[in-house]
């Protein structure tokens, strides 16, 4: 059931927002047997907070013990490990090392180990010599560290795509360009008016609207949380740099931020980021030359040999931070509404745990769900570098993007039902095309030809008379 589904149907659940959290919640409810629809304001899903993160699967070792975030991250981590193979999603357990660069920071390491244990995550102190032998390229002024073996690298876009597609394959409905402008609860049924003039009826609404969470919350009640987006900028280095860091390199966190991380990506690059900058703007995450230069400098401080490697890409994401530290998840019985807000920076890991938690809240308040007998699994195409890729197959189609080795067939497949890609950003995230070091120098024209008018931004052929060419 996709965008063509009947408008008069009353859904059990309407999920507002198709970011990582919305997609995971959608999947959870569909698989639990609820008639579920997910509504996304943008032309493509994953177009807000979820498009710019660090692509890490966290153990939750550094979460505040006892918080909802700690529980959801820990549950989400386990859930991802359980399902990733059936959805063909990558999981590289690179492990992480929290590195103390000063004696003060070294003094905090024991507390980090204790906190990890309280969170049920494996962690142990490591000496400067051990760190050096594991990461020979590291700046030699590291004092000591904590090794966290479970920290992992995943594909931040294919995972939520897989959740969304599995939900659709099992009967869920997904609408895009369906911004919920207003809603009315009448006789225990919500009528949600979407931007396109279509109305959705559902018995319970789940607000997963990310950076718009407080605005959507206002449909049900004065929002108890206020979103102040926190921007995180990242620098992606060329694949030649990836080998400099085996494990994920983390700083000792402070009160406000986890600090700048150096990590491999699932696609074989090395990223340095994020920054943490509060802003009012909810939609646009700009990059700033001074911040990027500072990230490059920080990367080179941590790994001096990084000076020999080029920058592939830069990006910025907005995390939906609130005045609270913990997730803001609450089920309102009377309002027939569940708020899932303030998922600031651990959403990619936490989403599957959040989804389960939300489903349990739902069942407590609104009754048991039926649980269908069989579940369809929908593996997604692999984009991770350490696992088989389409370009390696016999009799493949042409390679269109040479930096990321993306084939024409993969690009064509992104336009297929049930979730045809609609934006250039969506196409890039779904296929990796134009994401490499040349950023479209070699492939833009060919990709525009294959897209043939199906991506708004890309130009179409025949605008320039061929006889001149």
């Amino acid at each position, binding site marked *: 059931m996709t965008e063509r589904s009947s408008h008069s149907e009353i859904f059990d659940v309407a999920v507002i927002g198709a970011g990582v959290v919305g997609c995971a919640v959608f999947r959870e409810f569909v698989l639990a047997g609820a008639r579920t629809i997910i509504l996304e304001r943008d032309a493509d899903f994953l177009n807000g907070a979820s498009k710019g993160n660090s692509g890490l699967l966290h153990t939750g070792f550094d979460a505040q013990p006892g918080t909802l975030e700690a529980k959801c991250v820990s549950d989400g981590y386990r859930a991802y490990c359980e399902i990733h193979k059936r959805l063909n999603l990558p999981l590289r357990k690179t492990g992480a090392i929290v590195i103390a660069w000063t004696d003060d920071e070294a003094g905090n390491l024991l507390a980090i180990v204790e906190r990890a244990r309280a969170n049920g995550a494996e962690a142990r102190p490591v000496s400067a010599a051990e760190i050096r032998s594991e990461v020979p390229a590291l700046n030699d002024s590291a004092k000591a560290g904590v090794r966290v073996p479970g920290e992992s690298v995943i594909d931040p876009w294919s995972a939520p795509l897989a959740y969304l597609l599995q939900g659709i394959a099992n009967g869920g409905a997904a609408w895009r360009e369906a911004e919920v402008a207003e809603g009315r609860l009448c006789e225990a049924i919500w009528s949600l008016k979407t931007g396109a003039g279509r109305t959705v009826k559902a018995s319970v609404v789940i607000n997963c609207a990310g950076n718009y969470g407080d605005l959507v919350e206002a449909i049900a009640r004065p929002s108890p949380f206020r979103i102040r987006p926190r921007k995180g900028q990242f620098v*992606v280095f060329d694949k*030649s740099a990836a080998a400099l860091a085996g494990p994920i390199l983390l700083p000792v966190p402070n009160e406000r931020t986890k600090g700048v991380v150096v990590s491999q990506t699932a696609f074989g690059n090395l990223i340095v980021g994020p920054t943490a900058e509060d802003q009012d703007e909810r939609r646009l995450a700009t*990059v700033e030359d*001074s911040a*990027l230069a500072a990230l490059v400098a920080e990367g080179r401080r941590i790994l001096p040999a990084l000076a020999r490697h*080029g920058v592939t890409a830069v990006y910025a994401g907005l995390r939906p931070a609130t005045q609270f530290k913990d997730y803001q998840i609450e089920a309102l019985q009377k309002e027939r509404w569940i708020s899932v807000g303030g998922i600031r920076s651990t959403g990619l890991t936490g989403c599957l745990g959040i989804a389960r938690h939300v489903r349990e809240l739902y069942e407590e308040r609104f009754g048991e769900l039926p649980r269908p007998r069989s579940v369809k699994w929908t593996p997604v195409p692999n984009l991770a570098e350490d696992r088989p890729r389409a370009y390696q197959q016999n009799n*493949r*189609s042409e390679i269109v993007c040479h930096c990321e080795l993306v084939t024409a067939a993969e690009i064509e497949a992104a336009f297929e039902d049930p979730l045809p890609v609609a934006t250039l950003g969506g196409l890039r995230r779904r296929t990796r095309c134009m994401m490499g070091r*040349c950023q479209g120098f070699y492939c833009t024209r060919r990709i525009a*030809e294959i897209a043939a008018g199906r991506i708004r931004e890309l130009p179409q052929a025949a605008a320039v008379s061929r006889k001149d060419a």
Partner: protein
Amino acid sequence: MRPVVIIGAGPAGLTAARVLRDNGIRDVLVLERAAAGGGLPRHCGHPGFGLFDFRRVWTGPAYAQRLIEAARGVEIMANATVTRIKPKGRIEIAAQAGLGTIEARAILIATGIREAPRSARLVSGARPWGVTTTGAFQDMVYVGAMRPFSRPIIVGTELVSFSAILTARHAGIHVLAMIEEGDRIVARRPLDLASRALLGVPILTRTRLLRINGLDRVESVEIERDGARSMLACDGVIFTGQFRPEAALVEASPLTVDERTGGPAIDSAWRCSDPHYFAAGNVLRPVEHSGWVAREGKSAAHAILKALDGGLEDIDSATTLSVEGALRYAYPQRLLWDRGGITIFSRAARAHRGVLRLTAAGETLAMRRVSALPERRLSLTVPGERLRGKRDAVIRLD
């Protein structure tokens, strides 16, 4: 085992293929990752190609076709991507039929060049559609018959930047301005007047691009000129030049990379640090015109012929060159003692008048006065025998 495999069917690779064929080498294989050979000239629809190597003037696509025709009889495998360079002349490829390993007595790396995209320049702002490079722009206009935007600005004033103006003109695209951070354009002087007088594009020197605005498409840019900031409404930004070798394969290989050129380090017989590998063309350094690149392909082919006969000098009988002063880079990076006259090519980092000098152990081996510009190739020739026994030499511009 193949005698010779060439990676890249651009001007350097195809010219080398032709020369090898003409000298009786059979079974040369050219691997090209794109759907057709010809290299970057295929994307450049205006005239200016062929003069140096064919004594004729063609458009890029016509020149590319000439190169392919001239190499007739040599097997060109298109749609074949080399994924790994391994020691001793073994490469892994992802061909259309499937994965494979190829072994050759000599492998020529001629993978060419690309421009620095916006990301590598760390430019502030949003990241909308409409931000591109000259290469992608020309490919869209000349090959794809597309008009990606109608009122762009051009960032940079290298030779290729003026090529972007011609491309825009061809497509009926109105370039609003060309901006340059320096006091003068980088390309040689007459182009400045030409673009003002003939092409109607204002050139703003001492002007920096501060940020790009726009949600889905470019809407405007913010620029700074002599300290004053202003907004310019436009729908595209073409980043031109700042070329760099397309050397990701080399970076991921055991071959030595020269950090200054960004390409593989070679000796004066075009050999990489592993003697099974040779390199020629723009992968060696940014950037030379296609005719020059073709000439390098020819010269590398002759070195390969000699290597196949076992007649090439010992790779260790060479002086290692280092670069100092106002120079940005110099190559070849290793100078073989048995080669008659060796010409060292270099480029200055900035406009500079002074003395270009090669020294070893305090002794000046060659020198000349130069008036250097960053776009101008500098050369200095030294008799190979004067280097004999010297492990290190320095080339510097003072």
